[in-house]
């Protein structure tokens, strides 16, 4: 191994913070007389630190999944005639369970949507093997304007009044695909496609 090759190995060890005292001294000595090298190493260290502060490989797959759904929702919102189709920006069901946690048969789920600078946040709690309690909240510009929320399925419809805090609750909704719409007296504010 040539001298420069050894030097590069030392820099790599330095960047990975896996040096012993002797190596550390050697590296410091090596870079102390070279301003340019010191600058480059500082830059490289910064970028390495940024990259290594999170384990991207562990979260890459759920992050891609979240993004895939987001793109799909945005496409669907753009192709819709209405401008009130909500886009899902967070869905707890897409995230991996923490290490050592076993998946439950039916899990609670939190979902967050954006539509026209407003957020619609839903919490789904299983109340029986075939049904969920759905609690939602609208936050944003129109949060306190006396809305109603409707959940529509092919043969099941539910409706509730949204309270002054923008909160609404469907106590027991059977599993299935629903279209949740939030409306005021004159217009639909948000439309959310929901698969329970």
């Amino acid at each position, binding site marked *: 191994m040539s001298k420069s090759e050894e030097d590069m190995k030392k820099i790599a060890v330095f*960047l990975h913070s896996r040096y012993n005292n002797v190596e550390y001294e050697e590296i410091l000595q090596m870079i102390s007389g070279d301003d340019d090298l010191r600058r480059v190493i500082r830059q490289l260290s910064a970028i390495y630190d940024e990259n290594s502060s999170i384990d*991207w490989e562990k979260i890459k797959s759920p992050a891609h999944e*979240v*993004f895939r759904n*987001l793109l799909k929702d945005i496409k669907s919102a753009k192709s819709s005639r209405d401008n009130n189709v909500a*886009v899902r920006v967070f869905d707890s069901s897409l995230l991996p369970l923490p290490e050592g946690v076993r998946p439950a048969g039916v899990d609670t789920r939190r979902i*967050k949507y954006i539509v026209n600078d407003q957020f619609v946040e839903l919490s789904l709690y299983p109340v029986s093997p075939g049904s969920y309690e759905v609690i939602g909240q609208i936050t944003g510009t129109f949060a306190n304007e006396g809305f109603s929320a409707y959940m529509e399925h092919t043969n099941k419809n539910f409706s509730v009044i949204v309270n002054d805090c923008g909160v609404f609750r469907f106590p027991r909704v059977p599993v299935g695909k629903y279209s949740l719409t939030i409306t005021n007296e004159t217009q639909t504010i948000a439309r959310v496609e929901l698969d329970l």
Partner: protein
Amino acid sequence: MSDLHQGNITNLIDKCKMGDEQAWFQLVDLIAPVIFSICKQNRLSRDEGFDIYGQVCYELVNNINKLKSPSKILYFVATMTRRKIYSLYRKMRVKDYIDIDISELIPDEKSPNPEKNLESLRRREWLFEAMMKLPEKEYQLLHLLFFDKNEPSYKDIAKKMKIPVSSIGPTRGKALNSLKRIIKWKKIK
């Protein structure tokens, strides 16, 4: 990072603008670590981090056509991430319970004394930009030498890059010199 270099980031963003889904995922691989790093620095939970990530991605997809300077994309993402975190803090009313005004921590482009984290991010951005100006072989070599988590040996690097082991040293020297020149030219202190 290697994806970032393919034809440079401007090309990547152009492809995203045209709706190329693969390009979008390459861009996500570039920006997501920045978003999650900032979330981690701000001690957000995993769920909060993903929440912010989703919101920033939403803003990026909706504003990609308005980006005047594609090479500043990391800056856009970092600023957007901080704004979203601030909104989260505000919503949680954390601001009321701490003795500093968080808004001061939210840098804007004109901020003369940006916070340390932003400095680090800028260095990263500068280095990205500088590295992007390197010829692809040189860029790839520096990436394999310093940023590949598998820490490949010289033999592996040579195999991967289809070059003889003996040319790694000179190429690396050339790459670092080019990088120094670019950094000097950009007057990075």
